[in-house]
């Protein structure tokens, strides 16, 4: 009898003292998250960053050549290198974690529409500091797009800005500074990953709000939702604002113009490859969100959730395929196709943000309240 009474009181004591807080690293399921994070870091994130870095370095050297000898050949070379860098960037935009998050890599590389008037002021006045928030829309790949494709209607006129214009030196300086800033930023990110951050990332292998898995998944979905769905398609075709207006002038890479479809395609492939844990530039698939979902046997309507999500990525690419290379043209000629594309993108947000997050039991909030 005494034991029961003692038991009751130790229970009472437990009530007062039990900690339900899940702020520490806690693993609830047995899925090997270390393996997942290692695959992400070693086979996806770091190789993708290094690839983008290499493309930026190439762009940087092509720009150097161009500013010393501004001619058609060198301009073409810059344009090719710029597009390669832009494509490579589509593979890294989703990783807002660590250094990239700290320096706002996404904002410094790809804010569009770019601020043409602001750029002109910067060129004329000088003395700009690209690290400032107010300078985000005057730098990055969209700003370079403007500098190499948007200054005038013909290539000869564009080259003239760097050759005969009274401010030619200042234009050269600005273009160099833009590429230099791209390089500074990606160098900082790569250095950090190749330094201590890789281990920091992998060792945070729990499933709390601050764990790497949670942060990465949240970053991945947020990027897909805001930067891919809205930025590339939703805003330009007016589907998101739905006020009856279209905005063909705010597509990605507007001045080059005929690559907006290509860039979306790259970003979708990059998202799908990340979801499937596919090694960069290889066909091998490692531990991933897909294998995590399959491990948990996440089925929806009798079908693997991972297959449903992959099918939807495929659908997006299929819907994107017949669209004009230039989203601006497509929006002006037949916007219905763009709205269809938006809807296809939207559907996968529901699968990722609702069905996948539910299956992975990923915490979206910082409140560890009691449930019932």
């Amino acid at each position, binding site marked *: 009898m005494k034991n029961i009474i003692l038991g009751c009181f130790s229970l009472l004591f437990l009530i*007062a003292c*039990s900690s339900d807080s899940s702020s520490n690293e806690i693993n609830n*399921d047995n899925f090997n998250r270390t393996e997942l994070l290692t695959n992400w870091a070693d086979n996806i994130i770091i190789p993708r960053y290094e690839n983008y870095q290499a493309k930026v370095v190439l762009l940087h050297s092509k720009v150097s050549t161009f500013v010393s000898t501004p001619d058609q050949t060198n301009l073409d070379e810059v344009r090719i290198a710029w597009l390669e860098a832009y494509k490579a960037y589509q593979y890294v935009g989703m990783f807002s974690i660590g250094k990239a998050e700290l320096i706002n890599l996404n904002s410094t590389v790809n804010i569009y529409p770019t601020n043409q008037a602001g750029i002109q002021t910067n060129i004329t006045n000088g003395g700009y500091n690209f690290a400032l928030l107010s300078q985000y829309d005057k730098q990055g790949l969209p700003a370079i797009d403007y500098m190499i494709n948007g200054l005038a209607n013909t290539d000869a006129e564009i080259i003239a800005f760097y050759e005969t214009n009274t401010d030619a030196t200042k234009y050269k300086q600005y273009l160099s500074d833009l590429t230099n800033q791209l390089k500074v930023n990606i160098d900082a990110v790569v250095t950090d990953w190749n330094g201590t951050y890789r281990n920091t990332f992998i060792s945070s292998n729990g499933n709390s709000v601050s764990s790497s898995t949670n942060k990465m998944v949240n970053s991945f979905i947020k990027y897909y939702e805001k930067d891919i769905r809205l930025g590339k398609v939703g805003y330009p075709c007016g589907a998101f*604002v*739905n006020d009856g207006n279209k905005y063909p002038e705010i597509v990605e890479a507007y001045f080059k113009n005929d690559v907006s479809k290509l860039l979306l395609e790259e970003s979708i492939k990059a998202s799908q490859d990340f979801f499937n844990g596919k090694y960069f530039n290889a066909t091998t698939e490692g531990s991933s969100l897909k294998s995590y979902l399959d491990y948990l046997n996440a089925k929806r309507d009798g079908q693997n959730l991972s297959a449903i999500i992959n099918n939807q990525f495929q659908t997006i690419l299929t819907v994107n395929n017949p669209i004009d290379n230039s989203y601006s043209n497509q929006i002006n000629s037949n916007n219905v196709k763009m709205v269809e594309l938006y809807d296809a993108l939207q559907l996968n947000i529901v699968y990722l943000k609702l069905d996948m997050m539910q299956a992975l039991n990923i915490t979206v909030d910082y409140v560890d309240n009691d*449930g019932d």
Partner: protein
Amino acid sequence: MIQTYLNKKSDTVTLAFFRLAFGLMMLFSIIRFSAYGWIDKMYIQPKFHFTYYGFEWVKPLGNFTYILFFICGLAALFIAIGYRYKLAITVFFLSFTYIELMDKTTYLNHYYFISVVSFILIFLPANANYSVDALQKEKIKRLQIPTWNIDVLKVMLTIVYFYAGLAKLNSDWLLEAMPLKIWLPNQSNTPIIGNWFHKEWVQYAFSWFGALYDLIIPFLLWNKKTRNIAFVFVVIFHVLTKILFPIGVFPYVMIISTLIFFSAGFHKRIMNFIFAPFKSKLTVFETPNTLIETMKPPKYNLKMCFLALFMAFQLVFPFRYWLYPDELFWTEEGFRFSWRVMLMEKAGYAQFYVTDAKTKQRKAIDTTRFLTPFQEKQMAFQPDFILEYAHFLHDYYEKTGVNDPIVTVDSYVALNGRLSQRYLDPNIDLAKEYESFQHKTWILPFNDVIKGF
């Protein structure tokens, strides 16, 4: 026969034990809630609160909310020691219920259980012995009280368990092992048993055992022969739920509450143990008070009739969902206050739009501006939350100059392992819809059937 039952008496010590245990548990719960900083998180920080239909006037009181919690905790302490019991339990019931009504985001069946039990306790002579009141006023001290005073609490516990069991008798729970099929693999790191959570038969076993447990445990507790083994099951079951799910103090509350089913002798031994340091006083509690014992019971016991009515209400109220069309889990019309505990895995996604009626300009709303992540999560799959939030958006944007704001929502809900599907009619202007007990016609059909209760 009824008359014989009404005249049947039991020792007051059982009720005194329950009063002491209940008071202490509530005191600890309040302290725990405050210590985690949840008062601030749940009631002070949010800019907006989801209210209950008819109780829209119940709102957090700013910094006075802390005082409200303090009063509630103090009342719990007074209940435990039995000091000014009637006042203490009334204040506790009112303050606790007020706290629960402030924001339905935090709704838990267990909180409702506390409110109901404290309401019943208002009408019971739980301070008749082993209390400061009994020590101070000879008049109220009694050794025995009519048995129904204790049985009413047992009946309440029986309803909680049995109805929780009934609710599990549906095709999702029994035939699909949902939602445990989703929840258990997420807990596979649990020591020893965790590795088994991936096995389908384990998921089914947990589902069936859970349903069976809820349905029969109260009756095994009533029965003297099975009581001890039943209590062992109570402890195992609730400790397991405590390990697997983030359900706070309630496993302990339930374990301790079920002790009321034990005999008066058992409760007396517990009290002797607790009061051991005050041995001299103990004799006071155990000395019969001749004056009281000779008093006749009143002819019409109003209190008892009232409680009987209340229990009848408790029996009927959870079935109100029969009055609504479509699937209960989908619409949640009549879902709360019905002991549907840990019954479904449901999550939602809601993107709100505010359109200016004149210019047709549409804004997409960033919900994180107005709601905490916890509120957003709870809101996304419950129609009454979505409706209330839509009205809030209407009023907010009207003030910022939007003409007659039209509020629409793109919403999706995933329920018990089904793929998410559109939840509400995306074309309905929610600002023109109003909360009521009527069926919400703008909830899209579920397109599936869950058979059973």
